């Protein structure tokens, strides 16, 4: 059977012009024979043969004499099998060993590559979170003027949800509520401005920096000035706890974090103007809502207003919810009121005893005036 199969390959030997030539490879009983196209014949006996695997494809088989003067090579896929059949199983073993060691060299490289890629990726992700974390935890280092700028930009960018109410009785009543709470704000430097909007929505919000918008729907639905003050304490707490700024930083991530760290508020302000058109600056996470409730309760307590009035307002909403579709407005941004009522009550229980004083506001007169100006 020897010599039945021929393989395309080549030879390296100094006697060949140019040092190498393509050749036909044949496996004989004693060794590997190569015949070049010019008729030169070379042979390596099996017992003198060293084996290697390589070439551009990585699977070319090289057979060499021990003195390395003669090399015969072949890339034919059938060649290793034929070599095993004709030259003996020890060749197969040798071939397997060489292939394995070559693969291991490649493996080492691939492993370094994989490790390097993983490290780079980890550094990137880690760096991102570190920066985000730094930005978040350094929120205290950002001046309050940033909140005010952001709030102003957002306020200017959005259109009020209804016609602004300028009636002194109505506006002064809300201002009095805010004035009662303001001295007890734990963050100084905010400027609380009050805007009343004629809208049936039972809602109120406070932009970063302190611009407060109150809807007439809230004033008409609430049962007392203390309830409205309770809602205001919650909304003001969002500004005091800087939830707007935090929210922007969380949603905008790295860009904002970097901007804040290098002290550039300009980009943030233009961003806030965009965000102001959506609800992004006035809709917060559940944790932020809970924090605003807790802070609001503390503020009410410090201002000597019964914090349970806030819980009372939640109860009212809960009862009226099916009847007033408008109530859904406030609920959509302030969910889970059973939970919130519990939070408020729990906080109140922790507080030291306090002599509560009611608001010096003529509630009847306020309601009457709201009727007169045609508040919805």
């Amino acid at each position, binding site marked *: 059977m020897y010599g039945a199969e021929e393989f395309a390959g*080549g030879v390296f030997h100094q006697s060949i012009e140019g040092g190498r030539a*393509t050749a036909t490879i044949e496996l004989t009983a004693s060794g590997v024979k190569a015949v*070049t*196209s010019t008729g030169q014949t070379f042979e390596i006996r099996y017992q003198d043969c060293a084996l290697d695997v390589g070439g551009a*494809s990585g699977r*070319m088989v090289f057979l060499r004499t021990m003195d390395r003067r003669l090399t015969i090579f072949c890339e034919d896929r059938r060649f290793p099998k034929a070599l095993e059949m004709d030259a003996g199983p020890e060749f197969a073993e040798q071939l397997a060993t060489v292939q394995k060691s070559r693969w291991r060299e490649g493996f080492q490289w*691939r492993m370094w*590559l994989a490790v390097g890629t993983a490290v780079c990726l980890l550094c990137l992700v880690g760096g991102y979170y570190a920066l985000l974390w730094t930005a978040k935890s350094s929120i205290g280092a950002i001046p309050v003027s940033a909140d005010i700028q952001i709030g102003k930009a957002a306020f200017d960018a959005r259109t009020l949800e209804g016609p602004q109410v300028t009636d002194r009785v109505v506006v002064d009543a809300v201002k009095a509520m805010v004035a009662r709470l303001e001295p007890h704000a734990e963050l100084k430097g905010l400027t609380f401005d009050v805007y009343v909007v004629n809208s049936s929505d039972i809602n109120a919000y406070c932009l970063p920096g302190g611009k407060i918008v109150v809807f007439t729907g809230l004033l008409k639905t609430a049962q007392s000035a203390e309830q409205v003050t309770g809602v205001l304490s919650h909304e003001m707490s969002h500004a005091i706890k800087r939830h707007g700024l935090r929210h922007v930083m969380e949603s905008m991530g790295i860009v904002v974090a970097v901007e804040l760290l290098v002290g550039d508020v300009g980009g943030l302000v233009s961003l806030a103007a965009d965000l102001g058109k959506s609800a992004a600056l006035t809709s917060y996470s559940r944790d932020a809502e809970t924090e605003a409730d807790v802070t609001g309760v503390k503020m009410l307590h410090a201002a000597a207003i019964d914090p349970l009035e806030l819980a009372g307002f939640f109860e009212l909403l809960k009862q009226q919810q099916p009847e007033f579709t408008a109530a859904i407005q406030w609920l959509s941004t302030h969910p889970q009121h059973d939970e919130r009522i519990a939070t408020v009550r729990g906080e109140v229980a922790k507080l030291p005893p306090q002599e509560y004083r009611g608001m010096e506001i003529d509630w009847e007169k306020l309601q009457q005036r709201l009727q007169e100006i045609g508040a919805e």
Partner: protein
Amino acid sequence: MSQPHSVLPPVCRNRRFIIEATTRNRPSFANIHIKLEPGDKIIAEADAMASMSANVQMQTRWSGGVMKAVLKRVFGGESLFVNEFSAPAPAELVLTQPFPGDIESIDLKGNTLFLQPGAFLACEPGVTLGLGWAGMASFVGGEGLFRLKVSGNGRVWFSAYGGIFTREITDEYIVDTGHLVAYEPTINIRVGMAGGIFSSFFGGEGLVTKVRGPGRIYMQSRNFSGLTAWMNAHL
């Protein structure tokens, strides 16, 4: 070496045996000066034509399959198209490369040669251009995901940035990344680090190409990343 040994010798196609082509202005600004006779054909990389007689006909075709051509454009650095030049009457054609350097020509005679991305300049019609996967390591090493495999019969011209020098590799040899231009199929290429992991990344001699023989490699005396680095430093 997938070509069988019985490949026919170059045939005489009732015309002169070989297209007359001379490489001029070597080694710095090499260009190929070709005299085309009726029936002659030269295939060249898309941007290679510098000047030609008015009667030279140029036909553009894909260099390989469509998908491969696209991949090549994206990863391999070689142009998407090749141009086929022919002439109905004696004409001349000058082909060149966009960067200063030498041009080497090799008569394949049934052999195969691998070219690094961007090296291919021109070939005779008997040469087959094939695209081969060079591997992820080659890509990381800055040598491209693909390599051009030229095989068959006829001359192939490839270009280098700077001078071209060859080396017979018997065992293992190290070439700095970007200096390798072409190599024979018996050559095994791996990308490795010059030193340890630290010195490789901070010592300037980052990745190197590890070449294992036997076989011949063609190297260029300059490399492009060296040029860009030098330019950046002087801007």
